[in-house]
């Protein structure tokens, strides 16, 4: 590990986060048969089960397009759904800062309930802790979730069936969540809204249409770049991405250029990357017919060249690599 203390970079979803995960798994992992992706997928008495957990610490707790409660439900539902599971049950644990208004807490709870209803999941257990003022930032939420898979979808989280020629699809504009939160935090005025949404219904439709889905992942922290680089390293194939096909809102593009951010590294909370074989056209059509997938695109292809690397063909026909971000993106100086 590069440094002997935790810095904010360790939570950025980039290389330093990966180092921490390695430390955790080397200590915790006793059963190698459990597939570890966004969710753990394993055989249980209830069938093939997916289990995941995530903590939510977003600041501010309300942002354009969502709030911490909506995020806490969507994030966990999506982690289950991209593993090929049908999400069923969620837990929720609150860490509340002394002084938080109860009205505010209830509005977040209502938002969680509404989101859970729309995703068709039940929040069935929870916990509450209150800490002294200053010991947390208004509220932190942890949710854990359980879902169930059909046997034929068991390898989707791992990408074991990914092969050259497969197409890479995404369900719409990237980078909006990261910039929406950054904008409200810094009082930037714009129309950028978080894409925060439960993706399980869109994914369920896609899984039902044919059996060509070989991999799925939601592009959260670390953005599209982190998903693609991790996948290419894992399956040891190259990934060729065409920049002009990556959906990006004009306002997001503009703010990224202004701040020196790479939209490929920005967080999303309602974007799924699907890698599909021969039946990809039907998958794309199914994505497009869902309200959360109207802007769906094919953005690239799995190739047998440059194994373990993601190469972007730029809008002017040049090429460059896409890399996992090292840490937090910082605004440039000039």
């Amino acid at each position, binding site marked *: 590990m590069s*440094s002997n203390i*935790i810095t904010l970079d360790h939570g950025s979803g980039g290389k330093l986060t990966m180092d921490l995960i390695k430390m955790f798994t080397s200590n915790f992992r006793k059963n190698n048969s459990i597939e570890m992706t966004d969710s753990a997928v394993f055989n249980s008495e209830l069938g093939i089960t997916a289990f995941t957990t995530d903590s939510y610490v977003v600041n501010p707790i309300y942002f354009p397009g969502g709030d911490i409660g909506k995020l806490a439900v969507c994030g966990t539902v999506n982690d289950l759904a991209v593993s090929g599971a049908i999400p069923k049950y969620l837990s929720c644990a609150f860490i509340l800062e002394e002084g938080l208004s109860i009205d505010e807490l209830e509005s977040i709870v209502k938002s969680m309930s509404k989101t859970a209803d729309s995703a068709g999941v039940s929040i069935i257990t929870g916990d509450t802790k209150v800490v002294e003022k200053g010991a947390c930032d208004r509220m932190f939420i942890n949710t854990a979730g359980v879902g169930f898979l059909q046997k034929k979808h068991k390898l989707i989280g791992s990408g074991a069936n990914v092969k050259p020629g497969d197409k890479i699809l995404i369900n719409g504009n990237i980078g909006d969540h990261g910039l929406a939160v950054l904008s409200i935090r810094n009082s930037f005025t714009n129309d950028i809204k978080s894409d925060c949404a439960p993706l399980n219904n869109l994914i369920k439709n896609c899984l039902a249409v044919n059996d060509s889905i070989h991999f799925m992942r939601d592009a959260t922290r670390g953005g599209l770049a982190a998903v693609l680089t991790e996948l290419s390293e894992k399956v040891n194939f190259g990934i060729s991405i065409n920049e002009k096909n990556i959906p990006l809102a004009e306002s997001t593009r503009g703010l990224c250029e202004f701040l020196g951010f790479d939209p490929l590294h920005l967080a999303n909370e309602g974007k799924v990357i699907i890698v599909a074989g021969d039946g990809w056209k039907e998958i794309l059509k199914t994505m497009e017919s869902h309200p959360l997938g109207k802007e769906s695109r094919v953005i690239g292809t799995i190739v047998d060249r440059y194994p373990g*690397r993601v190469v972007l063909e730029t*809008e*002017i026909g*040049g090429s*460059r690599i896409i890399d996992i971000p090292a840490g937090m993106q910082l605004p440039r*100086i000039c």
Partner: protein
Amino acid sequence: MEVCGGHTTSIHKFGIPSLLPDNIKLLSGPGCPVCVTSRYFIDDALECSRTENIILTTLGDLIRVPGTETSLYKEKSKGRDIRIVYSVLDALQIAKDNKDKKIVFPGIGFETTAPLSAAAILQAKETGLDNFYILSAHKIMPPVMKALITEGVKINGYICPGHVSVITGTEIYKSIVEDYKLGCVVSGFEALDILQSIYMLVNQIEKNQPALENQYTRAVKKKGNKKALAMMNRVFETSDDWWRGIGTIPGSGLSLKSEFKSFDARQIFNPVERTESEEEKGCICGKILKGFKTPADCPLFSHLCTPVNPVGACMVSGEGSCATWYKYKREAV
């Protein structure tokens, strides 16, 4: 050679090197403010931050730059009050909101950011704000561009910095063309801007007619931004300055005039005078900044020196040559 970190990023982001013929090679010069700033500047900023009642405000890129022993980022993790701001005017606002604290802003960058520091100081003076200080490592462009030629860097023309030129106008490069017979084209940042600038320089070279040309006419005027220049000249005066990897260049730095010394963090918090030393062993940032070498020539590049563990300054800033190479073209693709 481009001498602007924004150009270096654009060039690699658009994959321009992969499109150029073998006989056109782009070199990245000393155009990234973080890369040319002395690591002792970080030590000075850290020393300021250790004073009681200080809030150190900083632009993002600077926070990860290693000083001699630690960085602002590590000190922040240990609990020091160090805040990332998007502009020096945010730092000024923090000063207005925290009258019981002293706010220090490390000012780095070229003619692009120096007028903003000047504006903040003028505003502080006007409003009687007495808890705001600038630690200046601001620099100006023309002296270093000339110093590189004098040192014998083999280049055939400069892609001149677009943002600097918005402030300064195009005339600052005139003597480079006249005295050194080297073409200068002021360029924008879009792919077509850069390709057109390369084309304009190639034309000059083919006709053997070095000239000062402005490709970025939609933003850059001959005389620049007079108001910004006036503010910069009101607050700052030129002084000899140290450039990391290059050395001292006469008249290349910007120091606060004595009239504004009550805003000068160096005067108030008195960081010790330091003698500049060599770079880390094996690091060739200096040679890269001068265009003698590329990141691929460095034995540390991508093994011992990475964005997570930067050894040299060129790997720290997102706009540094090494970080840009690491991100966009680590291996030939």
